[in-house]
């Protein structure tokens, strides 16, 4: 593994993407790398140089021509290998950023979109191997829709020894209130009450939980089982108190988008009957960690439209609770500023050669997602998860403070 050792020039980055269009992940991240963004109370100028780009799907709304015109140092290539080698036959960049989110890809029988993340990853690794060196690699979002491939990608990065980061921006964004899980806390139960679809927003809820509970006493030691609930089963589980009513309510009270159950009100705590009427397609993944911690993520679109975390912590009378704030949910927001910290940490990895937060976090979240989808697909059964024997310690908090 080597990194840019010339202090007089910025690290040179290859960008790979499924698609580059307005308000898609590629645009949010790459525009920030190219043009800067607000950070720490100032407009932060670009600290990386994008020297090559390969975008697989170029159709209507493609932003590559405009961006390439404004940034002539960014050359447009027709393959992963070409973007990484830039005509030299060998790896010719200091880092790789691959935005593997969005684009038109097939959906499988489980309802997963088959993003080509493993394929792109393999093509990058081919260049690394042929060149005899590897460079830091960032992948948006999670590793793969297939657990075996996700594990393989992680293992490869460890074996080849290159810095590898991936995953959601939810752990990195503003929190309202701005609170962090105390390091070493004994966490009894956690919840992330969220919205959005299966296989699209559930991963964000899983990462929202994980970035908090990984800080618990003993660190992360893996998950034992997971069971999904949907529709009628969801409400049955709720009424049977499969998850704690106390943290359910705490998470609900952190939301800024509770649908009022009554006309003529802008904010009134919904009754159970109203919740059932409002939540379009309630889904929960309820899982037990090896150390006994229970967690639930739930998708309650129609009832709420934001991400809210709560946890019961030993020694604290009230649950810890907060919203992971996404500006896209605000009707007059034009910037999805949760990409600011994501871009910052990508830059930091490229500049320092060090992972900024544990990639094991996204490996575990990816694994939980796969199991959640499998549980749904198999009729909402409880699935044991020996493959999720993933252990890691947290790094410094990535809650946005600046």
């Amino acid at each position, binding site marked *: 593994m080597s990194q840019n050792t010339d202090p007089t020039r910025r690290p040179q980055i290859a960008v790979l993407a499924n698609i580059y269009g*307005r308000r898609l992940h590629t*645009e*949010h991240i790459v*525009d*920030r790398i190219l*043009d*800067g*963004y*607000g*950070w720490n*109370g*100032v*407009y932060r100028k670009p600290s990386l140089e994008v020297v090559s780009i390969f975008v697989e799907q170029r159709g209507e709304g493609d*932003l590559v021509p405009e961006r390439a015109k404004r940034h002539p140092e960014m050359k447009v290539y027709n393959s992963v290998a070409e973007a990484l080698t830039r005509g030299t036959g060998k790896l010719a960049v200091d880092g790789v950023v691959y935005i593997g989110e969005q684009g038109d890809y097939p959906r499988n029988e489980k309802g997963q979109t088959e993003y080509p993340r493993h394929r792109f990853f393999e093509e990058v690794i081919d260049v690394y191997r042929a060149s005899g060196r590897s460079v830091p690699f960032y992948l948006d979002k999670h590793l793969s829709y297939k657990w075996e491939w996700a594990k393989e990608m992680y293992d490869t990065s460890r074996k080849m020894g290159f810095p590898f980061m991936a995953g959601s921006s939810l752990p990195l964004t*503003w929190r*309202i*209130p*701005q609170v962090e899980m105390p390091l070493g806390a004994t966490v009894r139960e956690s919840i992330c009450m969220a919205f959005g679809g299966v296989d699209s927003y559930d991963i964000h809820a899983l990462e929202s939980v994980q970035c908090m509970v990984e800080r618990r006493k003993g660190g992360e030691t893996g998950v034992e089982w997971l069971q999904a609930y949907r529709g009628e089963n969801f409400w049955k589980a709720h009424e049977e108190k499969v998850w704690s009513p106390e943290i359910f309510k*705490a998470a609900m*009270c*952190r*939301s*800024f*988008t*509770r*649908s*009022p*159950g*009554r*006309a*003529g*009100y*802008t*904010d*009134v*705590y*919904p*009754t159970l*009957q*109203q919740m059932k*009427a409002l939540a379009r397609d309630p889904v929960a993944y309820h899982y037990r960690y090896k150390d006994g911690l229970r967690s639930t993520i739930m998708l309650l679109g129609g009832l709420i439209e934001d991400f809210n975390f709560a946890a019961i912590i030993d020694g604290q009378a*009230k*649950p*810890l*609770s*907060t919203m992971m*704030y996404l*500006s896209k*949910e*605000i*009707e*007059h*927001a*034009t*910037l*999805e500023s949760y990409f*600011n910290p994501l871009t910052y940490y990508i830059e930091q990895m490229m500049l320092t050669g060090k992972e900024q937060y544990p990639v094991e976090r996204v490996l575990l979240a990816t694994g939980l997602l796969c199991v959640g989808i499998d549980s749904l697909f198999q009729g909402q059964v409880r699935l044991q998860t020996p493959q999720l024997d993933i252990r890691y310690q947290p790094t410094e908090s990535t809650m*946005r*403070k*600046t």
Partner: protein
Amino acid sequence: MLTRRRFIGYSALTSAALAYRPLLLPGMAQTPRDSSKPLVRVAVLGDAYQYGSQLQSIVDRFLVGYPFEGDWHVPAIQVVSMYIEPKRRAQVAVPMAPRAAASRSAQENGGITIAQSAQLAPRGGGTRAVAAPEHAGTPGQMDDLSVGRSEEFGFRLCANIPEALRCGGDRLAVDAVLSVVEQGDYPLNHKDQILYPRYDYFQQCAQVFQDEGRAVPYFNHDNLSFSFSEAKEMVNISEKLKFPMLAGSALPVSWRLPDTDIPMGAQIQEAVMVGFGGIDSGDFDALEAMQSMMERRKGGETGVKAVQLLEGDDVWAAGESGRWSKELLSSAQSRSDAPQGLTVIDGRPQDMVSAGVLPQLVKDPAAYCIEYNDGTHATLLMLNGADQNFTFSARVTGQGLIATQFFNSPLPNLTFTAALASKIEHLFTTRSAPYPVQRTLLTSGILEACLTSRERGNQRLETPHLSVKYQAPAESQYART
């Protein structure tokens, strides 16, 4: 942009159900009140209990509770009486006609919350005129809610203010008064100030207090008056009759991104606030937010020496000459989630200051230049067309730049009114103001002076009457938990 029409789709019940009251089941999952606490009886005075009005969003907090610190809080407060101006109660959906004045006049935001006025920040060229709200034409949207609420929650609807304070009896029968006067269709004066009757409401209450030899805490939503001398009289009366008073906007007490404040006793070298919205509405919220930061500076607040409201090219020239800091503007805008222009077109972030795009985006810029008595200066830049967030940045000795976004809570919940409700509750239950009413006295005066400057051809105006002195509380008063 989220219109009222789309927003209605969020509710389980359509507006048609409003016509069928029996369908509205009263069973609400309320946390029961703590019955060991005596209930504080409140009279509510206002001009619009309509869906989406400030009064509706605030007063409902005292009827059905509100989210607070990760729980649903039901205050030990009981609304016992209400006065809503009668002509409002009969009003049905009427599109508010744009003002016939020149582009700088503003007022259509009657009954508009901060969030709504954010949506209404101008279309078609960024003038400081505000277009008609989109709820015009949606059946039922402007319907009065006071009758339905009074039936459900058992408070008395009153024909006048003294009756509301006496609850229909012959003695003062409430423990607190909440006044929310907000409709935008009062007349304007020649300075484009909306002639809200807030002073009139207050005086009617003060008369009752005086007659009975007893007075209770009073909350005045938004600025005290369009006239500083009226505002001053209100505060003087509250001191004379010894009742605690609180006033102002929700913006300073709501959430901030990041969660930051000016350190108490800091030396502020200069500050810039970015705001948007109409004259005598968005600018007031912005001035209050800015003042909530400035008041914490070394020496405490000692008032304002002079103001000047610049417009048009003079705004940009003042930036170039260093009258206001472009570095601080860029810093404030770095906190914004709502830059306009190219960001709307293709989603990209921008540093508008160094790109030099502000003059073309902001058709009607205004700089409210404030010179404090202690030599500190601060500038509110109203940048309709360029930005739709309220942001702030200050250069602070030994701290560098302190910059934040005053968060504008989204529909449907408008949680900034929950933050404000917790301050009102503090006033009503402890009979002490969590922060001085002098903040709003000063900002009311600053706003009046700035609009006077504007009316006099953007002249610099000395403001000896604005030597308002007060000490801000050491503990930050905005939503942090």
